[in-house]
């Protein structure tokens, strides 16, 4: 009877766990409270696993450079981009965006870019940070 795992679990027992304790060691009573405290410097947040250089996170839009050519609308698979005729600018709904970055590739002015921000979970699809314009 060979049980190679038994040896493995006892070596494991004396090592530090592999878990990344993001954002805190134990679930805070209220996450919003905790984040507020982190913002004011009262609490410390254990950072998430670092993102690589060309990570595709929340979309960024440089409104002033945009020429309103609507090319980004043409390739967006998720129909996450809306064209506002009055201002000739676009509005991106992050809740619909699938982070493909295809609009970045086609934009002739390179005004659309992907940031490394990924903590975007929310209950409100139309919250302020869910709309980029």
């Amino acid at each position, binding site marked *: 009877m060979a049980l190679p795992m*038994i040896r493995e679990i006892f070596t494991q027992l004396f090592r530090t766990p592999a878990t990344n304790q993001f954002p805190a060691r134990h679930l805070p009573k209220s996450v919003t409270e905790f984040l507020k405290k982190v913002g004011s410097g009262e609490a410390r947040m254990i950072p998430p696993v670092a993102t690589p250089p060309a990570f595709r996170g929340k979309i960024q839009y440089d409104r002033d450079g945009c020429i309103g050519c609507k090319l980004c609308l043409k390739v967006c698979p998720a129909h996450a981009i809306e064209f506002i005729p009055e201002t000739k600018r676009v509005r991106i709904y992050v809740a619909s965006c699938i982070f493909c970055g295809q609009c970045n590739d086609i934009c002739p002015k390179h005004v659309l870019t992907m940031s490394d921000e990924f903590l975007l979970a929310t209950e409100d699809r139309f919250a302020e940070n869910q709309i980029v314009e």
Partner: protein
Amino acid sequence: MLTVILQTVAAAVAFSVIGIVVGLFLLGIDRRISARMQARIGPILIQPFYDIRKLFSKDNIVPENAIPSIFHAAPIVALASSIIVLLYLPIGSMMPILGGYGDLILVMYLLAVPSLAMVAGGFASGSPYATVGSQREMVSMIAYELPLASAVIAIAWLLYSSGISDPFTLQAIVENPVWTLVGPIGFIGLVVLMLTLAWVTPAELSKIPFDSPEAETELAGGLLVEYSGKNLGLFTVAQGVKTLVMGGLAVAIFFPWNISPLLGLSSYAALAVDAVFFFLKVVLLMIISVTAIRTGLARFRITHVVTIFWVYLGLAGLLGLSLIILDSVVMGVL
């Protein structure tokens, strides 16, 4: 007489409460250590208490084609019988409360009751998963009874042949550590018996690799599948108490020594220190024979469970028994 009864009842109630708390702690330790073995952090030690609080705040859901009376009785019987066994256990230097009213044989039977209650509850749930789970539980109960019985008989026989009166009481076992009664051959026999019991423990507690009656990935919880809320909470508490009982039994039989004589303590201090020491021994045994095994092995099929207990461990139990008998024969000749 009346005061004796009252005292016993009061002690029993106190013991039950302590037993439940300690049992739940044991579950917490088990989960934590198992998590560390898997390179996880694991829940805090008092997580089982939170779980129980949550379960008790929920309603019982009774399936339509269940037999409600049996369905509801099963968890209560399981918990009650586990607690009763606890009252037969010597804890540290404290003698068992019910020590005078039964012996090891009774304890063995009582140990089977929680499992039987679960089987009854499973059959009464009216779910095919629970039915399959109950059938498997019955099969595995029959399977591990052979090695368990041979170990118990061996130890009683050892005490009997050493001329100790009441060889079947736990008190006698604790007062005469088995290791001191044997020669070299019997020592090997005792080691074999100890290892056998170490494998019976996870089966008795329905843990991996012997958890085929519950088998999450096959039967979705098996005989417990229809249980929820308070009833499931009762089963969890019973599981905790049972873990304590199994650990305590092993400690009583194989590691009955206390630490207070070494420290030169007496009276209440000795009782407390010994109780803590007893608990530590139980934790250590549990980690080795439950946590490590359930973390380091895959689940057996029910057919494997039967083969393992009837053939391998059954033989091991009988081997231990014969070695002990042989030992006393040899010793008797010398």
